[in-house]
């Protein structure tokens, strides 16, 4: 684990900013809860949904255990189909490889469909600094790209934006009429705008949802058909994938594709499931396989399950904290519970507050299509942060003190008596002073005169000590 910079503000501050606009936080919560409910209904229509999740988790675990072999099998078969396979150790290598391919073909404009990996690698600014225009062609991605923002959600990149705001953005950037906020009209405007970009792109880039070892094919799921639009016209297709995207057999897709769309959006299947087996006639297909820290997570037995994630976003939609704090509060390319895990594995110091951005309610575990035990892993990341002495010293000291008090019954009782006395006796102005974070929006409990054990001893006459 690298020891990067310390986190500047932390999730609580960023989350509080988002939550301060209560109406907006409420709207964000409702929008995502709607997706969660849609997911519930879609999952309910699949007989043996829970067995499907078991199967997916088992395939993922199996694949992880033989990852190198499956990746090599994928490479062999992809090459046999005419693709060129590249290996990138980290984000910098990935960006260099992609840039080399593109500049070697004199590419000026790339039409890119959704890829969280290229976000992770910071590919867009890298290419743009070298004179290559990247057009994100997923509608949500295009919106945040036009706004100069990162995605706030891995499935709904612009979920934090209200339609009126998108109308304003399109008015400024695409010349739509002022005040236009009808989603259909805005989508149509984006479509016309993107059509022109598709036509003039010199290369298409995509992410990879699944890479099939057995066939050497890659699978990309979109709802807008933009992966196909972006890759069918130009002769050059560059696909970036993390090492964890490989599945052993074509038949395994039957498990994952059924889970993915239902978990992500509540659809029975994504509108377009595009299979690429080698380049189009006269074209080139390059697959860039990226590690970028994944091997380190894989080597950590307690963290590796987070790598089985299929990026459906269900944990975000169900997370009561995410819904009320927004994707940006995580300040990591992947937000939400899974993002908190990945971020804390990658750079615990820079993301120290993320494992605490959870009530450990466990809802994420239960929606996860590949059964990542997210809330338990968040707890383990907390433990790692404490052991690495990354948590604030004040917290360490207060927790040690609390531990000591709780380990000594008489001290614990004395502390309890003092606490109850203070709660009863202190004037409200002091009790609810600035120090009392609990009491900002909540009343404190009304303290009883006697603890349970005091009453018990008095009434049951049991001695102690």
């Amino acid at each position, binding site marked *: 684990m690298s020891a990067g910079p310390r986190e500047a503000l932390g999730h609580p501050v960023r989350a509080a900013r988002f939550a301060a606009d209560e109406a907006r936080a409420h709207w964000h919560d409702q929008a995502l809860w709607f997706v969660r409910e849609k997911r519930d209904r879609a999952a309910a229509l699949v007989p043996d949904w829970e067995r499907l999740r078991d199967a997916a988790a088992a395939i993922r675990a199996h694949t992880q255990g033989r990852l190198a072999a499956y990746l090599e099998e994928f490479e062999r078969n992809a090459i046999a189909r005419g693709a060129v396979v590249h290996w990138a150790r980290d984000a910098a290598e990935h960006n260099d490889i992609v840039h080399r391919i593109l500049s070697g073909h004199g590419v000026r404009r790339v039409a890119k469909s959704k890829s969280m990996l290229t976000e992770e690698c910071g590919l867009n600014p890298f290419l743009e600094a070298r004179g290559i225009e990247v057009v994100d062609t997923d509608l949500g991605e295009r919106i945040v790209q036009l706004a100069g923002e990162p995605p706030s959600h891995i499935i709904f990149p612009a979920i934090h934006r209200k339609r009126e705001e998108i109308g304003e953005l399109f008015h400024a950037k695409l010349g739509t009429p002022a005040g236009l906020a009808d989603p259909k009209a805005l989508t149509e405007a984006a479509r016309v705008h993107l059509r022109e970009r598709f036509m003039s792109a010199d290369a298409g880039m995509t992410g990879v949802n699944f890479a099939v070892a057995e066939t050497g094919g890659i699978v990309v799921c979109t709802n807008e058909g933009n992966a196909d639009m972006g890759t069918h016209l130009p002769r050059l297709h560059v696909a970036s994938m993390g090492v964890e995207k490989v599945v052993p057999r074509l038949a395994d897709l039957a498990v994952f594709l059924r889970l993915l769309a239902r978990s992500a959006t509540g659809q029975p299947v994504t509108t377009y499931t595009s299979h690429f087996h080698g380049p189009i006639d006269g074209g080139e297909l390059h697959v860039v396989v990226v590690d970028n820290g994944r091997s380190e997570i894989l080597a950590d037995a307690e963290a590796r399950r987070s790598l089985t994630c299929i990026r459906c976003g269900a944990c975000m939609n169900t997370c009561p904290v995410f819904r009320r704090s927004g994707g940006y509060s995580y300040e990591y390319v992947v937000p939400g519970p899974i993002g908190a895990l990945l971020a804390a594995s990658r750079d615990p110091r820079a993301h120290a507050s993320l494992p605490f951005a959870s009530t450990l309610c466990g809802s994420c575990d239960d*929606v996860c299509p590949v059964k990542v035990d997210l809330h338990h892993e968040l707890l383990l990341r907390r433990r790692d942060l404490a052991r690495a002495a990354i948590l604030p010293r004040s917290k360490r000291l207060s927790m040690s003190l609390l531990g000591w008090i709780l380990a000594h019954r008489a001290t*614990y009782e004395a502390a309890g008596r003092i606490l109850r006395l203070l709660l009863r006796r202190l004037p409200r102005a002091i009790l609810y002073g600035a120090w009392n974070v609990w009491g900002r929006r909540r009343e404190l409990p009304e303290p009883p005169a006697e603890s349970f054990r005091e009453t018990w001893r008095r009434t049951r006459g049991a001695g102690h000590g």
Partner: protein
Amino acid sequence: MRVALFVPCYVDQLWPRVGLATVSVLERLGVEVVFPDEQTCCGQPLANAGFADAAAPLARRFLEIFSGFDAVVCPSGSCTSMVRNHYDPFLAGRPGFETLKRGTYELCEFLVDVLGVKALDGRFPHRVGLHQSCHGLRELGLGTPSELLLPRSNKVGGLLSSLSGIELVPLARADECCGFGGTFAVAEEAVSCLMGKDRLADHARAGAEVVTGTDVSCLMHLDGLARREQVPLRFLHVAELLSEALS
């Protein structure tokens, strides 16, 4: 049957009436209750804050204090889950640990699974909203979480609905977290309170007069918000509700 009562530290200090109600429910059902006086805390506040190493001595202490009973019963799903699901790293392999783990129950779970109670002969003529605390629901399996596509069950709801006169009100979000979350309630105060307020609104919209649940921690948070916002809801731990209904 002789059971040891495990009263979570904050219940002992701040909500003794919940401990007393637990005793009254158990004794009414013919259970002999012992309160091991040396008990303090299961260590969950430390472990959940990341300080697992500081929690380890409390786990060892717990095993020592609570060994040798027919069962350990606790009026908290979260603290019960600490023992059952989170003590392994501290106590695995120690004599008596497996027995303790298997024999530690949340109150309603104990009534249903051990005593075999199917219905209670009590009366509670009120509209009640059931707050399903997360650890009881998802870690102990007191019910089927809404996320899982499995046959529906609900141990707490089952006991409550057996009371005469009670009306369990349907919530829009049956098992969303209230936002307490231990230190989360303070560390992430803004989001915590927003979550709590949304739960209150759900119960109020459903027409609840009383909100009940297995964990005082969640209820303390909701009650604190409700009193500040002057939401006219009454909060009763399920032991208090059952004790009131049975008397």
